[in-house]
């Protein structure tokens, strides 16, 4: 057999059967469940009189609809409450483990999987959520699915799929000081476009990727879907093994030794074939800020808002014009002259402890700028919140005038009460700047946590590397 990519290896390990057309049944090791995409799937099971194939392979958590303010009185919004209570009831009925809203382990599904060791190297992982690609940072094959597939995974422990093509994105060399995983990923999306990875599984490699922490790698893999790829992954190394060791759901004792030995083979062979290879020079990557309504509409903070007049493709030009109109921006405006009113720090992209530390480092001893109306800091899980408080980060945030919230998806997609008003401009550490994503008419600029923190204290976009903190 010829040399294989990491994706090839993970795929081969999980194929139960294939038909002549290449349509395969792929076995699923871990299924993560949240309250938005699961109720219709559980209802489907009920109507067909089916049971989950392997209840222990599922782990559920409410995250999209939970309030990030005081939870002692429950959820005020009756529709959000119904969703969360429906998840509670479905998990109880079908024997599925759930970290309920007031469990310290509750959090965003893509934060808690790795945090608990519930997502492990070598696994296939699915969830009815497009940011499931996050878990590929641990050397797993993880992708988002729709609700019909959620039901299929529950009922059969498998997914019907054809194999995707292999893409390698290599970020060569080292990034400069102050450049984060988020900047790397936004730069990748800027280069290949939001459909650049469609039909592919992306493997991220190169020295700059290897140098990232596990949490940074999760940020990169998280946004694979923003490049069109259902899954992104990074080969296993010592960092991966060290990260997983000792986590509640990770193997221990003799099984740990066996698992560790097995996992060390989870990397691409040196001459493996990729259908597409993209290289980026790490040292050319600057702090990134999006200006439009698609993550590919991104520039370096030192640049200006692009001018549609310079775009030759008429469809793209109209898209740029529509984006500028929606965003309330004028072409050729320096990004550093854009003044948000709100800053959102959190999400499955950037709601981990290292993200919060990066924010604290920038804001320590500073106050919110006069033009900034609110800064929300939403930890990705109850345990991230606990850790941040143990380190005193919450005090730094509160002293700066930030709001320190309870864990959840929050303003990343504004299904709870955290949302933008029409025309409200936000510097956000989340993953999508689509129209209306953070609230109808809201204007989102995607940035790294450090860049968001800089906006909070300076009042406009600024190269965080130039601040004296």
């Amino acid at each position: 057999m010829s040399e294989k990519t990491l994706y090839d290896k993970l795929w081969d390990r999980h194929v139960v059967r294939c038909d002549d057309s290449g349509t395969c049944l792929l076995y699923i090791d871990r299924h993560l469940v949240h309250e938005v995409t699961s109720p219709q799937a559980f209802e489907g099971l009920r109507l067909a009189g089916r049971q989950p194939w392997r209840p222990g392979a599922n782990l559920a958590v409410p995250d999209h609809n939970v309030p990030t303010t005081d939870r002692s009185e429950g959820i005020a919004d009756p529709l959000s409450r119904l969703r969360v209570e429906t998840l509670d009831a479905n998990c109880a009925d079908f024997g599925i483990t759930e970290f309920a809203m007031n469990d310290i382990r509750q959090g965003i599904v893509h934060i808690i999987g790795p945090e608990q060791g519930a997502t492990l190297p070598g696994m296939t992982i699915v969830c009815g959520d497009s940011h499931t690609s996050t878990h590929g940072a641990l050397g797993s094959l993880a992708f988002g699915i729709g609700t019909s597939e959620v039901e299929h995974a529950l009922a059969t422990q498998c997914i019907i799929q054809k194999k995707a093509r292999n893409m390698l994105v290599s970020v060569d060399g080292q990034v400069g000081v102050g450049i984060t995983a988020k900047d790397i990923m936004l730069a990748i999306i800027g280069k290949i476009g939001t459909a650049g990875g469609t039909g592919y599984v992306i493997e991220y490699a190169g020295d700059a990727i290897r140098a990232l922490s596990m949490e940074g790698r999760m940020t990169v893999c998280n946004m694979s879907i923003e490049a069109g790829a259902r899954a992104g992954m990074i080969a296993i190394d010592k960092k991966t093994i060290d990260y997983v060791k000792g986590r509640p759901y990770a193997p221990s004792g003799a099984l740990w030794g066996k698992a560790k030995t097995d996992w060390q083979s989870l990397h691409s062979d040196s001459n493996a074939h990729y259908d597409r290879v993209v290289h980026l020079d790490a040292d050319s990557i600057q702090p990134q800020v999006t200006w439009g309504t698609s993550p590919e509409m991104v520039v370096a903070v030192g640049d200006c808002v692009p001018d549609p007049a310079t775009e030759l493709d008429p469809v793209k030009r109209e898209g740029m014009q529509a984006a500028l109109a929606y965003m309330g921006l004028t072409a050729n405006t320096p990004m550093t002259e854009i003044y948000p009113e709100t800053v959102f720090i959190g999400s499955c992209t950037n709601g981990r402890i290292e993200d919060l530390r990066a924010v604290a480092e920038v804001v320590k001893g500073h106050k919110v700028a006069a033009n900034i109306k609110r800064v929300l800091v939403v930890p990705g899980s109850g345990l991230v919140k606990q850790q941040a408080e143990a380190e005193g980060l919450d005090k730094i945030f509160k002293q700066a005038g930030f709001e320190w919230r309870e864990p959840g998806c929050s303003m990343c997609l504004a299904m709870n009460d955290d949302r933008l008003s029409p025309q409200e401009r936000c510097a956000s550490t989340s993953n999508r700047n689509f129209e209306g994503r953070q609230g109808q008419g809201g204007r989102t600029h995607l940035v790294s946590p450090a860049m968001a923190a800089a906006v909070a204290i300076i009042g406009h976009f600024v190269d965080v590397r130039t601040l004296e903190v």
Partner: protein
Amino acid sequence: MQAFCRLNGLVAPLDRSNVDTDAIIPKQFLKSIKRTGFGPNLFDEWRYLDHGELGMDCSKRPLNPDFVLNQPRYQGAQILLARDNFGCGSSREHAPWAMFDYGFRVVIAPSFADIFANNCFKNGILPVVLPVEKVARLFAEVAPTVGYKLDVDLEKQQVTTPAGEVFEFAVDVFRKKCLLEGLDDISLTLQHVEEIKAFEARRKIEEPWLFSS
């Protein structure tokens, strides 16, 4: 699932690329725990001038006259013509549920986001990929022709224009069969129960740590 075989349907053009699933069905409507009834909120933020919430009577809401689907000539459209990367973003299956509920059975575009296309096939909607220049041609033909219809034949994998011009399209063999026959994936997979069990038993031996919790 409702089968799809062939359709001669009115075409509505949505001339934007990267139409995301947040635009197709905004998040406030994901709070419904049903699969049906999303049609009135399809493209809600483009379609209405006010802010929509779940449970509102959409027949009383102010329509945005500039939005293409609100034009009288496109009422009853069953085929949506779109640009690149249609359905990108969130995996929400509420997007195809809303499109089906509205009445769309076919979406034609130069490219689709993977998860959205997959979700379409599972809900009786056929996503047709045509080359970008052919899609551009169709956009140019629809605009001046009120009542412009296309014939979409899944069995033959052909789109036929009113002038009789035929565009062939590719479709995955398995998905084609499922859509033509309206097959339920889960029942199909459960025909292979013994293979899944045997696979699982082997993995329990090879990777026992995956079965310890």
